[in-house]
């Protein structure tokens, strides 16, 4: 869908997903790395073999549908080559600390003169300016400052982040939205656009209904383990079963279908079926109206019922009978999840070490212009010769002076 457009990607792990999303949607993405490679090439998990600069699975995961070149932007020749690329580009996305691009002489004010229709997207921790713009930041400290940690985790332990880095993925997927919003405005105004994305606010958005809770209900939401906090009450979500855990929300519709299962297994006596108007149970619970069986008794019985079954047995019975039971999957179980296989989700990718393995597919299915993966993550400087040489017409010496020769 975006095939007429060229995207220049000057990001590292803080923005690579943004440009990959545009690439998956069809844009021609040119990844521009420093001669020593993007910092994300040094982020694990790693392959144990293959060329050293190609071992990062993090880099491999977020750089498909991109061609790759290197440029030394501290050199005049490197910046001159960048400006040549900017002339023909539609988007430039970068994730340098605030002010760094301007100090190099390639900030928005310079680039917009080179290309008056450029959409320039800057991804930073806190934004381009303001009292915290210069703060040092990491995944953990942004998950804290953005509020997510305050509501996440067991109340008897410290607040927690999601155990794997997530912050820059939130920020960079937001940057993709921002890029296309700014592009729409460029089309109508005819002006170059500057976009300032803040990772902190991207994390605030993950708080969902807790974001401004204090101003609405006079108190914050706090971490409550896996309980679902509804504002007026909380319900447990995680139940232990034979081989791990499942996630369920016990509402009236669920109970109507599950109470007979509990009777069938002898967990509760048969009179429970008629003993309650199950479809309205949750509404009466929330409204604090009379209940024949207490919520503690009901949830206790549900917990006893699921305990001897496996995650898969519970999921499959739920699917057959329209009861929403979600297994807490590991990546291993996910890889074996039949639904994804039958939807053709996994793609097969050749890794830099030569192995072929399944990898996550595209993020949406389009009826008219299906998304495809046209190429996997580029090697360091893989397309320098094609882009700097053949497209820009630089000689081998000029490519070298611009830093286009990769590590060498």
């Amino acid at each position, binding site marked *: 869908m975006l095939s007429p457009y060229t995207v220049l990607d000057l990001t590292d792990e803080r923005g690579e997903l943004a440009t990959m999303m545009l690439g998956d949607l069809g844009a021609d993405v040119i990844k521009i790395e420093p001669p020593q490679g993007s910092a994300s090439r040094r982020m694990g998990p790693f392959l144990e073999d293959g060329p050293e600069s190609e071992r990062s699975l993090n880099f491999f995961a977020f750089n498909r549908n991109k061609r790759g070149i290197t440029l030394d932007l501290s050199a005049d020749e490197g910046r001159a080559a960048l400006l040549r690329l900017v002339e023909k580009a539609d988007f430039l996305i970068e994730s340098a600390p605030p002010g760094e691009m301007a100090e190099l002489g390639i900030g928005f004010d310079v680039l917009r003169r080179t290309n008056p229709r450029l959409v320039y997207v800057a991804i930073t921790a806190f934004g381009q300016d303001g009292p915290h713009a210069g703060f040092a930041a990491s995944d953990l400290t942004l998950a804290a400052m953005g509020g997510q940690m305050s509501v996440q985790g067991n109340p008897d332990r410290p607040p927690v982040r999601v155990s794997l880095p997530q912050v820059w993925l939130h920020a960079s997927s937001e940057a993709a939205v921002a890029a296309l919003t700014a592009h729409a405005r460029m089309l109508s105004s005819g002006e170059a656009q500057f976009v300032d994305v803040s990772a902190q*606010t991207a994390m605030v958005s993950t708080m969902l209904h807790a974001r*401004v809770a204090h101003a609405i209900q006079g108190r914050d939401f706090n971490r409550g383990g896996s309980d679902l906090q509804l504002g007026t009450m909380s319900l447990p979500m995680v139940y232990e079963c034979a081989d791990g855990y499942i996630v369920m929300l016990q509402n009236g519709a669920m109970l109507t279908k599950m109470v007979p299962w509990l009777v069938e297994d002898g967990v509760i006596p048969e009179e429970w079926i008629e003993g309650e108007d199950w479809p309205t149970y949750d509404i009466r619970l929330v409204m604090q109206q009379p209940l024949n069986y207490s919520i503690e008794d009901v949830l206790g019985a549900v917990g006893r019922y699921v305990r001897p079954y496996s995650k898969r047995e519970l999921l499959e019975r739920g699917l057959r009978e329209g009861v929403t039971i979600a297994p807490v999957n590991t990546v291993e179980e996910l890889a074996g999840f039949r639904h994804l296989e039958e939807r053709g989700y996994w793609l097969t990718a050749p890794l830099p070490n030569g192995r072929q393995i399944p990898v996550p597919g595209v993020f*949406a299915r389009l009826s008219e212009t299906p998304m495809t993966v046209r190429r996997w993550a580029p090697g360091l400087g893989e397309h320098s010769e094609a882009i700097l040489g053949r497209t820009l017409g630089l000689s081998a010496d000029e490519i070298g002076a611009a830093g286009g020769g990769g590590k060498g």
Partner: protein
Amino acid sequence: MTEQLPFEGVKVADFSWVWVGPTTTRYLADHGATVVRVETQSPPDRMRAMGPYKDGVPGTNRSHAFADFNTSKLGLSLNLKNPAAVEVARRLIAWANVYVESFTPGTMDDLGLGYETARSLNPSIIMASTCLMGQSGPAAAFAGYGFHAGAIAGFYEITGWPDLPPDGPWTAYTDAISPRFLATTIMAALDHRRRTGVGQHIDASQMEIGLQFLAPQIIDFNVSGRVVSRAGNRSETAVPHAAYPCAGDDQWCAIAVETDEQWDALRRALGDPAWADDDRFQTAEGRLSHEEEIDAHLGEWTSSRSPYEVMEILQSAGVPAGVVQRSSDLLRDPQLEHRRFFRYMEHPEMGNVPHTGHQFHISGYDSGPRFPAPLLGQHNETVMREILGMTDEEITEALVAGGIA
């Protein structure tokens, strides 16, 4: 510079509910599109039945869980079980450029409002269908929320403590991720339609979208067989890396020392205490194998100071440190204030309440939100008369038939 908004002139028929669809269309609405949010009283959007409620008092129009996800939209109530309502819905789809729905697969087909019908009414329509598992596959009918998708996608397994059951990410985690991917896709489809006149049906599975955030670990499993699990706040490469207790009730500051330079800066900021001089702590490997000892020392230092004091001291030395902020802290965060992140708007029933703004600023215009979320059915008359061009007679007929409910 002109004040023109990016999506001025774009028309959206929003039949979605809960969070993913409404958040997606909110991007378009806040940035200039005309979005008609279709709801019904029987039953109302689940988010209207979820807190936080203004002053803790429940009510259909008092839920900020609804209000914060539906700004800048017009509200139309249609009971789609009624043929008169389906007729109005068909007019709305004929009017729209973008049609969004988030029901269980097949629901819109059963109502006579599926993609084939939509395309016959409006050949270049962009229809987006989003649900947990996608429109096809053996689990397509799996109807649930973002916490169910979060569990299936693997996020519960990796959030919390290794010695405890999974805590899971906060609430419906994939609902925080999916709208960005879906909005990007719809915006790309709008651009494609502008250039080619060709519409599109988009099938966006929220669980599949969530997997994008675990891609390196999924690939790693397929390569090495390694299975990641929850690890509290531990990092495999950095110590200190935790939330440290501070003075006050349940107050915390997160500190992450990811390089030797940051370790040196931390030592200076603490006033070069003797414990930190230990040879064992001067390399990343050394710090990783003595995490508990380092955490105990650092925690002792933080626990006598407020979290903001800890952050200020460490930040002035260049150490990544961030207060674990609650909603009440965010509402007075000077950086968010500088960005005008929270926007106070007068809601007809909740009064002057803050709404979250956008995570990005685009130069040259105020990026919204533009006006508060609709009350249930607030714009029925406006939408039917002014947008759909229905006559008085037609409107009366639809009302009498019970469709506008």
